[in-house]
């Protein structure tokens, strides 16, 4: 792509990532969540892959690290679920506990506190990591056919 596009893409890449992680982190407060945020992050990857040559990107963004992110995200999600198995599977034992994400919220209108909702933000984060890995791999696989790209993705 042209220099204008590349400059814009490098500039926007950071913001897309930050916005994606913002959506992930605020999943329990605002619309969106792990999947949506992860998808936004993956669009960031798509953006730079389209703007630059596939070969250049392949050196920066490793497919193995994306698949690792996928596995780690899925594992941490299921472990977050299992962590409540003392009571029942997916039991939200962190909520209102005073620990991490354990602040209790009084009933009524509030601006939205990040440090609440127990295991939900952890699960959102896990899903976010999983989706950025999964969709990232899909994007890389699809875009390696873009003109100028190397035919063999592996």
């Amino acid at each position, binding site marked *: 792509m042209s220099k204008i596009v590349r400059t814009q893409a490098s500039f926007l890449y950071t913001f897309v990532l930050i916005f994606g992680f913002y959506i992930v982190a605020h999943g329990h407060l605002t619309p969106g969540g792990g999947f949506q945020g992860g998808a936004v992050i993956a669009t960031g990857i798509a953006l730079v892959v389209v703007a630059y040559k596939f070969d250049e990107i392949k050196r920066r963004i490793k497919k193995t690290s994306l698949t690792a992110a996928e*596995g780690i995200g899925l*594992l941490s999600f299921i472990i977050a679920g*299992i962590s409540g*198995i003392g009571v029942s*599977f997916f039991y939200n034992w962190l909520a209102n506990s005073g620990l991490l994400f354990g602040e209790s919220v009084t009933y009524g209108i509030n601006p939205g506190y990040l440090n609440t909702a127990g295991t939900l933000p952890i699960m959102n984060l896990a899903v976010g990591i999983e989706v950025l890995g999964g969709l990232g791999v899909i994007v890389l696989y699809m875009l390696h056919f873009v003109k100028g790209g190397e035919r063999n993705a592996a």
Partner: protein
Amino acid sequence: MSWDYFLNHSPALIIVIPLLAAFATPLIGRFSRKAMYIWITASLALTEIFSIILLYGVHTEGTMVYVMGANPYNLSVPPDSGGIPVRIILTVDSFGAFMAFTASTVALAGGIYSIASEHSQTGQEKYYALLLLMLVGMLGMVLTGDLFNFFVFLEINSLASAALVSYRIDKGVAVEAAFKYAIISSIGALAFLFGVGILYGEYDALNMAMIAQRMKFTDLDKIVMALFTVTLAMKAGAIPMHYWVPDGYGKAPGGISAMLVTASQASLYGVFRVSFTVFGLSANTLTLGWFLIILGVLSMFVGVTMALIQHDIKRLMAYHAISQTGYMLLGVGVGLATLGTAAFNQYGLAAMEGGIFHIINHAMYKGLLFLTAGAVIYRVGTSDLNKMGGLAHGMKYTTIFFMIGALSIAGIPPFNGFASKLLIYESVYQFNPLLSIIAMIVSILTLASFVKVFHSAFMGPKIYDVKEVPKSMLIGMCILTFFIILFGLFPNIAMTYLVAPAAKALANPLGYIARVLGGGA
């Protein structure tokens, strides 16, 4: 961590274990392949153990209710919910536990079998992750008490199965089969989701028990009933919607073909669960029962006649799988058609027992047959029967296993196919003699077809200089053979502990509803 703890949490744990194992497999596979094999086998064995714990649980406590994220674990209707079950509820009755046992046994055999049969393939960690996810899908489908959750597990199952069908790309033929399977199951799942949406709009509930209790059986509900039964029958491979089965089963690796049988049966479970529990109280069960019977008879007859002309060993077996599904639909359909009448206790329940018994029997012997077919292809390299011959010279154990499977599918004593088929013949004869006669003819044609396979693959002069297949493949076949002979010699064990409770649980929607809405206590 006591026995009670495991017993109470077993409905969740049986899904969690393969799920955790599936997600950890790619990470473990990065470090050591051997560790991954041990990990897979251990997790599949643990799932099998939990399925037995589950069977014990429903045997002693009756229907088990497990509510995800609730405190305590069986609080299905929280006091502040206004009498509505709000969370995801796993409802395990005897039928669900029975299906879970079937699915995890075949998965254990298929998993161990795959260690050797896929030994030289690339991307194995993904293969095993998907295999475990497929098992998760099946277990979730048969254990959940929530329609939307059923859809989610149906999708997990379909996607994992489709990916596994395409695992051996096979110059694109397997990919085409997988693509067909993926399209069919997505369309089916979407139609199912559409039905779930209608029910949710009407009754503000997704829980099967809640919907069944509130069911008014309006015209919309009839549409939903049609959507559910047809899409799930399509996933089960009943005849007018069978076209994906020969490709899907035929092109998958051996261990996966065996598991696809149980995956189809999980959809069959869906048909039965929906028609008995959700619609059984309000719908005209005679009509619905006849619908299943007609599907069953068509599947039986068309399946076996299509199988007779095949010369690809796995396609042939796939058509037989369709044909055998017909027996289950016939047996349970007769039970449904007579539900609530005096005839139900005379022969309807027996027909249901036959149909349900046939589910586990079919999973075992058809699983075994697919594994032997995989073993033949593993050694010979072709699935064309015309090019095979004389394999009995080199592959003694495989030949014996194939004979057991073939005799069992044809309903020859002392193997398990005989026990369930006899039950179906006897009870269905009282309902309608013609149906029973068709079932017998189909059985004879099945025998004829397998005699042909046996003759052309294993008999005759030595053409290929083949060795016996590796040990892990034999162990996989051995596990299934063990159950075939066990259920064949002692059908009363299976009847008392597995089949009869399952049939009774399925025929008793009121008990199911009371258990879920009564707070799970």
